[in-house]
């Protein structure tokens, strides 16, 4: 299997703006990466030349501007990437000092992004807080695909509609509202403090939608805080809908070498996993002895014969940076 190309470039900062109390947007001119970038993938930014903070920081794409071959009217037509970040620690604090025109070391595109679920007529995008950011790039791509659909489409199938459900602590903690509106999408909004839209959580909006509207042909794409994603996974499981989640993770290298960004996933079919050449090629560890975990003990406690009932949920670790950061929600072991 040939590795996907990864570029390391010194990208010029085209725009850097504060868009909320602690939210910023950073647009980088880097045609090499913008050409390859897919929504849900990410870049590793080197936010400082010093050894403190030491590591690069991962950021998913808020917007992707692929290089335009013909009409290049705006600077970003050259090929640009925009990220939206929240100041949470030393790395992001340091980033706020970056100035337009400066150059920043960018490594990417990395990981596996969102993929269109075949044969689904509705895409529901559900995000919370800063996790809304990568959904903006995905919505943009879905809308583009919809536009092309009349001619021919391999990927989007019969996608007819995109529904956006987003939430945050307060109205200034939800990025991308304006971008969704510009795409002709009217996002349903939930805020915990009631400062905008429905007072509550984005997952409340989701439940309401599914209960009242049915949406049997929906596919879900989600990003946000872990408890929210776990809840989305639970709801979509109940309604038997496919759901992809973008997981945030600490990582050091971003390219699959350090094994620091381990994500615990279900490994339902033991033999399947052993025979799955792809999984092995990607370095997914399979360890037989540690497989008989709590889940199996649990099913015994409930008096179920583990062999007949659901196959025991053995687990394995995969890398968020390589096998993810977008996963199928039902594969994740939410703990």
């Amino acid at each position, binding site marked *: 299997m040939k*590795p*996907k*190309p*990864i570029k*390391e470039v010194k990208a010029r900062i085209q725009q850097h703006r504060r868009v909320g109390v602690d939210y910023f947007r950073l647009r980088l001119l880097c045609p090499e990466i913008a050409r390859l970038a897919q929504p849900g993938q990410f870049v590793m930014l*080197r936010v400082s030349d010093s*050894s*403190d*903070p*030491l*590591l*690069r920081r991962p950021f998913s794409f808020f917007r992707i501007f692929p290089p335009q071959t013909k009409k290049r009217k705006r600077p970003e037509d050259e090929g640009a990437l925009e990220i939206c970040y929240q100041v949470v620690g030393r790395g992001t604090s340091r980033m706020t000092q970056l100035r337009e025109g400066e150059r920043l*070391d960018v*490594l990417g595109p990395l990981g596996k992004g969102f993929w269109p679920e075949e044969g689904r007529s509705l895409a529901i995008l559900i995000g919370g807080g800063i996790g809304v950011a990568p959904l903006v790039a995905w919505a943009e791509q879905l809308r583009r695909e919809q536009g092309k659909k009349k001619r021919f489409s391999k990927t989007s199938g019969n996608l007819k509609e995109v529904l956006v459900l987003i939430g945050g602590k307060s109205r200034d903690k939800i990025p991308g509202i304006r971008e969704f509106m510009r795409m002709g999408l009217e996002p349903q909004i939930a805020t915990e403090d009631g400062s905008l839209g429905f007072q509550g959580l984005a997952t409340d909006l989701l439940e309401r939608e599914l209960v009242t509207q049915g949406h049997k042909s929906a596919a879900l794409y989600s990003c946000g805080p872990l408890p929210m994603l776990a809840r989305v996974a639970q709801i979509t499981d109940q309604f038997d809908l496919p759901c992809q989640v973008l997981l945030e*993770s*600490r*990582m*050091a*290298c971003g*390219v*699959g*070498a*350090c*094994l*620091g*960004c*381990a*994500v*615990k996933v279900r490994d339902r079919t033991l033999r399947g996993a052993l025979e799955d050449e792809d999984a*092995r*090629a990607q*370095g997914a*560890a*399979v*360890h*037989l*002895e*540690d497989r008989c975990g709590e889940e199996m003990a649990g099913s015994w406690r409930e008096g179920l014969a583990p062999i007949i009932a659901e196959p025991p949920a053995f687990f*394995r*670790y995969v890398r968020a940076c390589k096998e993810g950061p977008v996963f199928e929600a039902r594969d994740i072991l939410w703990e």
Partner: protein
Amino acid sequence: MSPKTDNPSLQVNLGSLKLKNPVIAASGTFGYGEEYSGIIPLEALGGIVTKGLSLEPRQGNPPPRLAETPAGMLNAIGLENVGLEIFLQEKLPFLRKARCPVLVNIFGSTVEEYAELAKRLSAVDGIAGLEVNISCPNVKAGGAIFAAEPKTVYKVISKIRRATSSFLMVKLSPNVADIGKIALAAEEAGADAVSLINTLTGLAIDVQTRTPVLGNVTGGLSGPAIKPIGLRMVWQAAQVVRIPVVGIGGIVTAKDALEYLIAGATAIQVGTAHFIDPRAGLKIIDGIQRYLQANNFPDVASLVGSLKIKKDTGQPT
């Protein structure tokens, strides 16, 4: 000093193993080579040490596995690896084509497992040598328990030595009282080289939750923060053993690498720095070359162990 050389040689000899330059990618930070192959030309490196390998696959530790610390990072991966069979079938074919000497880092939970791995790996083509990991701080078995005492080091290394005629390098732990004695035990047991230092055991705490940051509680500290310790230990080890010493620990720039060479390292390994800059190793090779040129050294070897210390000061303790 030798006459000025425009093109100093970067080649180094680790005993029987010849490397085109002294810069090696360190185990656990470079995957199985292929992870970085799309980003840098692997053949430019002096060598690659693969992720620690065991007979059976290992799942590794629960996350979080990483914590950033001042000028460094803690990791507790727990030696997750694909196991020998998958390594041979799926990882080695790529490495064979990489045109770069490959050292396979091995570990076991018993002396017999080490010997078995060494034996089976020496029977296949495409491996330049073995690096024996007796110093991982993050797993109970196969970890630091072997590295702590000269006696156990001697026992495990001599057993491996009898199992293989391959080039054998022993990776030493800094979490020991007397590094000289440990290095000497490795040499006496038949090691061709020693590499040091592995990570230092550390702890990071989240004060909000009053819990350890790492899933494994403790982890191994690496990065620029540990360089002075690595340098000191390499210097100490190089004075007591005759076999080559390979320096590891916080090497980010050519200057860092040069310090290790001057302290007595014949070659060096770049680890954590590759996470930050995949080109770190290449930049270091370039920087060493320029230093040798500028200072009229004909080759790397003439720099190795050239630390000047005034008499009656700074004796190894």
